[in-house]
């Protein structure tokens, strides 16, 4: 229980710190959003509009910085993230709500597949180390994980979408963007295929190599030798004894990756014109849409924190040593 309480406390503390940083950072940036907006309009916005914009965006405030901070905390905790400056009067929550499902679907799916397939392949490679399978899988994994993701993305896009025309060139779906219809669902799958394959291919290598290396270490441990000496079948030794112990580091990196699922994959979403949250973040940053940026950072930070918290909880189930510590 103390373990749990400590983790929960840490979650709250880091959450508060992240919120505070999120409040301070935009205020340290040079220039004010109104002037940025004038720069973006490149001489077409009547300079007389400055006053109206300040009032509309809630920038004309007499509050002290501390009062602003507490207002911000209150608003954030009640889910009021304000209005996007780029898409005014669209609410930040609406924009994030539109983009997040795309990213969760695409990046979440790719991360889970990469973890499961990569872990299995790594364990297999370790068990049959030196075999043809091992000597193909490992260099391929290293190569894939070393290649820049946007480069693979462009390559895949060029070959499969542009040259062969098997998949659409970009976007989330054509026509009605809903899961409501069968054709709509099909469109979503065909649009997601290439970015999902690219993402999976790139993150697969890391899992393969990490899993293979830890498994090899574990295989030399006495308890594995003992299990073999007992005459247990290879299948049982490989899965219940070796893999289960070797999976912990892989699991850690999976948990981290899962946290970043909400952050999306900026290069992938950009290359494939994917309407996800990373693309939204890219737009917010290029147009200095502070409220939108803050909202997205908040979602990302919370995603990472919560994923880590859940991973901590799962460790208790996976690792008996932590279970013992947690009970004390």
């Amino acid at each position, binding site marked *: 229980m103390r373990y749990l309480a400590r983790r929960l406390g840490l979650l709250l503390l880091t959450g508060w710190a992240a919120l505070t940083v999120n409040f301070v950072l935009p205020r340290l*940036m*040079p*220039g*004010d959003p109104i*002037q*940025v*907006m*004038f*720069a*973006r*309009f*490149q*001489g*077409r*916005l*009547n*300079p*007389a*509009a*400055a*006053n*109206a*914009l300040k*009032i*509309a*965006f809630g920038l004309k405030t007499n509050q002290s910085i501390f009062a602003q901070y507490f207002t911000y905390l209150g608003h954030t905790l009640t889910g009021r993230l304000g*209005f996007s*400056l*780029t*898409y*005014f*009067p*669209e609410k930040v929550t609406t*924009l994030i709500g*539109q983009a997040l499902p795309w990213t969760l679907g695409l990046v979440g799916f790719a991360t889970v597949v990469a973890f499961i397939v990569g872990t299995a392949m790594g364990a297999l490679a370790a068990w049959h180390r030196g075999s043809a399978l091992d000597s193909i899988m490992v260099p391929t994994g290293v190569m894939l994980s070393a290649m820049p993701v946007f480069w693979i993305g462009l390559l895949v896009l060029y070959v499969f979408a542009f040259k062969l025309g098997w998949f659409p060139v*970009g*976007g989330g779906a054509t026509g*009605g*963007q809903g899961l409501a219809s069968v054709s709509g669902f099909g469109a979503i799958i065909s649009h997601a295929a290439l970015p999902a394959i690219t993402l999976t291919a790139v993150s697969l290598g890391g899992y393969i190599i990490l899993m293979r290396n830890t498994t090899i270490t574990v295989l030399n441990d006495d308890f594995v030798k003992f299990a073999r000496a007992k005459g247990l079948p290879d299948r049982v030794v490989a899965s219940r004894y070796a893999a289960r112990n070797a999976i912990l580091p892989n699991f850690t990196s999976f948990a981290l990756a899962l946290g970043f699922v909400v952050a999306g994959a900026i290069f992938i979403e950009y290359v494939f*014109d994917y*309407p996800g949250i990373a*693309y939204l973040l890219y*737009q917010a940053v*290029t*147009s*200095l849409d502070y409220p939108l940026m803050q909202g997205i950072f908040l979602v990302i930070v919370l995603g990472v924190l919560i994923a880590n918290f859940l991973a901590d909880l799962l460790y208790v189930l996976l690792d008996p040593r932590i279970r013992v510590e947690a009970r004390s």
Partner: protein
Amino acid sequence: MNKASRSLALLASGATVALGLAVAPVTSASASSIRYGGVLKYVSSWTTIPDNFNPLNPAGTGGTAGGTGSLLYEPLIYENVYTGKATDLLATGYKWSNGNKTLTLTTRTGVKWSDGQPFSAADVAFTFNYVKKYPALDVNGFWKSALASVTATGPNTVVFQFRSPQTSLFPQIVGQEIVPQHVWSKVSNPVTFANPHPVGTGPFLLESYSNTQVSYVKNPHYWMPGRPYLAGVTMQAVKSNATAQLLVMNGAASFTYDAITDPGRSFVAHNKAFNHYWWPVTNLNLLYLNNGAAPFNDAFFRKALAMTINVNAVAVRAYFGAIPAASGALRASVTPGQVHDWVPTSVSSLGWQYNPSGAVKLLESHGYKLSGGSLQAPDGKPLPTFNILVGAGWSDFISMAQTIGQELLPLGIHTTVEQEPYSTYASSANYGRYSMMISWGNNANVTPYYMYYYLFHPNNSAPIGKFASTNWERYTSPAVTSALNAYARTTNLAIQKSAMATIEKEVLQNVPVIPLTGRPNFLDYSTRSFVGWPGPSNPYNSGDPGDGFGGGGEMTYLNVHLK
């Protein structure tokens, strides 16, 4: 920078107070030969179209639904920034009286809102007073200016009273889009109101909206006889300018708004019969010199720089010949459409000519010395290396800065190109933290007054280190200020012309900024299915984006028709 320039709607349209010639929208074909019907598709790299049909929206970033609100709501008069000509929309005439402190507008009769209610002068008065009630909607600063009251004195008459004469506000006033009183008087928070069921007087009605596509159908009861020709208009948002350009080239869309790099080769050449672009110059790119600090505080020094910079080379390097250099009369910081009416020939030949060796002599006559490839100030110290400030990644400005840097070398002036993101770029300009900077003119309009006002009027100025909204180069002069004030008070065209000529002379002699190239609208279109586009022979608008409001976008949709 293209990303930003394509989507921005003209917030304030232009007008000349005295040149308010009302012309009917002209078409190239006679009415009998025009084919009705067809859905015109405009494609733009908006990415996401805001779900907002509020024409009073203060966040001018396209205001209503990516700017297409100009199909639904109309201003009083559309004024063409390129030609200086006006087209009457909801107003049919106006008169200044009472020493230019009273403006009386006559509104159009027989106009109906799309819900069937009649439009009247009361709606106009309501819109202006509504903007007064909610200062966040007052993007033109009407009620911070000399405007005192707006009242409807009859069904077709609305009277604007000013505390002091301010005729220069006319373009903003007639550019205000008008909303129906019977709908908006019931709206409780108009600043964030998304107006999902728009009721307007415009030529089209909202048909459907999604965040990537918005469609309009013809308004069968539109007041202008025989218009629009089109059965509908669709605006599609895509994620990049390249995609938009591809869609126009393959016929999936008919026009877009984008500064295509080398458009002759990368767009027109793909299909010379269909692909066209019209980029009419409505503003200028200027080299701002920081007049507040040495050595740029000396007029002869600024003039020597101007004599050394070959603006033709700058324009070709930056725009591949698609946009003209700011040479000839344009050196006075005016746009090409203004030269004929506003720049007397006696003035346009004043000032400097391109003459690098003359520039060296000019500097030497003031004690400067060119030694070892570096320019020495009269006190014998070599000049430092100067920054030329541009926005980060703005390829056209970067090319210009590099070209200028090379051309200033023979003068012994060394420069580096400094790229800053929007935020720091804007504040460096506002606070005067730069030596040289490439940027645009602010709020350029039908007469030279508007760009001059924002460039040179003390209202927009402040010393270095203090916030100056648009007087970035920190040049002011009593002669220019009094000419600006004289222009703003009168409706007398002769007085206005002589005031502008005064400023032109000052500008050509003192070189507060160096005009580099034109700055156009970027209309790229295909004549595969639709014709009737604006162009040099038929400039019924200034090549506005299809998502431009203030009437410019609407003019395209009123004139384009099936082939």
